[in-house]
């Protein structure tokens, strides 16, 4: 069973990285794998595994960055957001 929330340690801790995904989504899986392979420290949430109240508040959180609330959404330093699996864009934003 996949956990709904957690933190992954990594060598790159310069940025505060929040990963929002769905446990059934392959592009989310690829994005998470990319962050792990690059040893980026990040927090993750699988929104489909949250109970409804929590799910709504997390959706509101995502909506600020991505009005369509699509997945994966990665928010960096509460300042920037990368929507979809975009390795090059993540590398650039995270300085990898």
């Amino acid at each position, binding site marked *: 069973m996949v956990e709904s929330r957690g933190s992954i340690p990594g060598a790159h801790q310069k940025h505060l990285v929040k990963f929002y995904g769905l446990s*059934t989504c392959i592009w989310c899986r690829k994005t998470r794998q990319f962050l792990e392979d690059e040893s980026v420290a990040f927090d993750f949430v699988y929104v489909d595994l949250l109970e409804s109240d929590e799910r709504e508040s997390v959706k509101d959180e995502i909506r600020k960055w991505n*009005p369509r609330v699509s997945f994966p959404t990665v928010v960096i330093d509460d300042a920037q957001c990368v929507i979809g699996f975009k390795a090059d864009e993540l590398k650039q934003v995270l300085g990898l």
Partner: protein
Amino acid sequence: MSAEITPERIEKVYQRLDREAKEAAYNLNPDKSFTLGLVEGLLVNEGRYGYWACPCRLADGVREKDLDIICPCDYRDPDLDEYGACFCALYVSDDVRDGKQELTPVPERRPPGGPTAQAEEPEHDEELVGFTRSGMPVWRCKVCGYLCARPQPPLKCPICKVDKDRFERFA
């Protein structure tokens, strides 16, 4: 509890989808392990919601609200047209299948919250709704555009296999 999701079951569903896709001139993504992962997601959602909610989208859990994102979703064909792949890349165009076009991330086309969250579509005037000369209503599949004239829509679309509730009256 729903049937267990085993590799054998995933493979069987994959084979059926592949056959049905080819019969209707669609292609599944040729990256098989990727595609199997999506089929697994569909089966997880079948167990969770009772229908094939798109694995890459957040389902509401109420079928009426999720109708447009039941696989194949209402957005598959426009995305195939514009990007060569559906949002999840379960379905791809011939060019992407043959490696002539690169697979790029497909932006979300679905309106936020889905069509039922938007202002109600104005009801068509009854005059605009089509009938054949013999008085049969005309039905349109919202996924693939298949049209038929009969008293009710078919239980399943003969082209793309979606259920009856994905049909609308054709105006």
